[in-house]
C-alpha cells in the first residue's frame, strides 16, 4: 500500500509542478515584495517591521489560498475526467488513494512555505524564520486536508473552495470570536448565552490557526521551540480528524 500511496503522491506533486503553480507562487513573492516595499516607504518609523508584518500576512494568506485552490480544482477535474473511477477500478484501496493525494498535496505545501520562509530570512533571524516556515507547513497541511474533505463532500469547485476559505478565516478568527462572545455574556440575555455556547462549540472542533505562523515571531523575535510543539500536536490531532472524516466520506461514496 505504501508503494501505491507513493505513486499517487508523486503524480499529484508532478501535476502541481507542471501546472504553472510555481509561476503563481513567484508572482505572489514579487507582489508581496512590491506591496510591502511601497508601504515601507510610507512608514515614518518601524519601516522594516511594517514591511515584514504586511509581507508575512500577505504570504501566509496567499499560500493558503493557492494551495486550497489547487487541491479543489485538481480533485474536481479528476472526478469530472472519471480519473477516480479509473483508479478505483484497479486493485487500489480507497485509503491509499486518499492518503496518496494528501501526501502529494503535503509535499506541494512545502514548496511555497520554504520559498516564503526563505524570503522572511532577509528581515528576520534564522530561528524565527525556521519556526515561521515549519508552522506555515503545518498550517498548509491542515488547509489541504480540509479542502480535500470539502471536495469529497461537495464535488463542486465553488462550494468546496468557499467552504475551505470560510473554514480558514474562521479558524484564524476563532479566538477573537470567543472573546467577543465572552464580552457579550456579561449581559445575561439567553440569546447571548446561546451564541457564546455555539462559539465555544465551534472553537472546540476547529484548530486555532491564529496561534500558528505568528507574524510577531518575525517582527519581535518572540517565537520559541515550545510553541512549535503545541502546533505539531494540534496539527497531528486535526489532520487525523480530517483524514478519518475524508476516509469515512470516500468509503461511503457509491462509485
Amino acid at each position, binding site marked *: 500500500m505504501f508503494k501505491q500511496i507513493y505513486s499517487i503522491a508523486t503524480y499529484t506533486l508532478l501535476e502541481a509542478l507542471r501546472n504553472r503553480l510555481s509561476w503563481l507562487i513567484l508572482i505572489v513573492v514579487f507582489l508581496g515584495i512590491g506591496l510591502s516595499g511601497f508601504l515601507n516607504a510610507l512608514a*515614518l518609523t518601524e519601516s522594516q517591521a511594517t514591511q515584514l508584518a504586511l509581507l508575512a500576512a500577505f504570504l501566509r494568506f496567499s499560500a493558503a489560498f493557492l494551495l486550497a485552490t489547487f487541491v479543489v480544482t485538481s480533485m474536481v477535474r479528476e472526478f469530472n475526467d472519471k480519473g477516480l473511477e479509473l483508479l478505483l477500478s484497479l486493485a487500489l484501496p480507497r485509503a491509499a488513494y486518499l492518503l496518496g493525494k494528501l501526501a502529494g498535496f503535503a509535499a506541494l505545501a512545502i514548496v511555497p512555505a520554504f520559498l516564503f520562509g526563505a524570503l522572511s530570512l532577509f528581515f528576520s533571524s534564522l530561528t524565527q524564520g525556521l519556526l515561521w516556515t515549519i508552522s506555515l507547513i503545518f498550517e498548509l497541511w491542515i488547509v489541504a486536508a480540509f479542502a480535500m474533505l470539502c471536495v469529497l463532500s461537495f464535488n463542486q469547485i465553488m462550494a468546496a473552495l468557499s467552504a475551505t476559505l470560510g473554514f480558514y478565516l474562521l479558524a484564524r478568527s476563532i479566538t*477573537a470570536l470567543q472573546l467577543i462572545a465572552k464580552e457579550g455574556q456579561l449581559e445575561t440575555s439567553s440569546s447571548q448565552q446561546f451564541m457564546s455556547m455555539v462559539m465555544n462549540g465551534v472553537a472546540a472542533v476547529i484548530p486555532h490557526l491564529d496561534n500558528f505562523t505568528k507574524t510577531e515571531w518575525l517582527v519581535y523575535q518572540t517565537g520559541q521551540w515550545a510553541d512549535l510543539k503545541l502546533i505539531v500536536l494540534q496539527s497531528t490531532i486535526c489532520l487525523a480528524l480530517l483524514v478519518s472524516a475524508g476516509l469515512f466520506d470516500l468509503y461511503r461514496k457509491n462509485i
Partner: protein
Amino acid sequence: MRERSISSVPKPALVLLALAFLAQLLWHFMQPTPVAKAENLMAPPSLASMRLASFGEPIALSKVAMLYVQAFDNQAGLHLSFQQLDYAQVEAWLDRSIALDPRSQYPLFAASQLYGEINNEAKQRRMLDFIYRQFLLDPNHRWKALAHAATLARHRLNDLALAQKYAQAIRLYATAPEVPSWAKQMEIFLLEDMNELERAKILLGGLLQSGQISDPHEFKFLEQRLAELETSLANKVKKP
C-alpha cells in the same frame, strides 16, 4: 493550447474592446483625484471588531491602521490639516493601533513627533496625555515618547509642572537597565536654564548615542525636525 491569430476575431468585437478600454480610461480621468480630507477621518471600529477583522494578524492590521491615519495628514499644507483633524478620532485610532500591537512604538512616535507638534494647546495636551497613559502601561518600552512629551510640555506649553511630572514618571517607572541614564535624569536638565534647541539636541543626541533609533526613516524624520527647529529659532532671533 495554441491560440488562433487576431484576425480571426470579428472586427466588431475588436472595436468594442478598444472603445470599452478608451471609455474606461476616459471615465477614470473624469473622476476627481481621491484626496483624504481631514473631516473624513471617522471613528475607528471597536477593538473587538478590529481583532476579528485582522483574521489573526493583529500586527499587520495595526501597521495598516497607522498608515491609514497618516494618509489624512501626510499631504501638502501639513500643519493646516493637523488643525482640521479631529484629535479625538486620531487618539482613538492610535489607541486601537497600540492595543493591536502593544510592542509597537509607531503610535507613540506619531503622537509625540507628529500630532503632538501642533500649535493648538488643547490638541497638544490631548496627545501628551495619551502618551502618558500609554507609558504607564509599559514604562520600560515607552519612555522615549514620554521623554519627547516632557520637552514639548516644557517648551511648547510652557508647563514646567507637567514636564516635571513626565520626567519624574520616567525616573520612577522606566527602571530597566536599557533605559539610558540621561533619560532617567531628564528631570534635572528640565530645570536648568536651557533653550529649546539645546534641549532638543540633547534629546536627539542622547537617542542617537544610545542606539535607540535604528530605523532610517525615523532618523531622517528626527533630523529634519531638528533642522526645522533650528531654522525657526534662528528666525525668532532675527525678529526680536
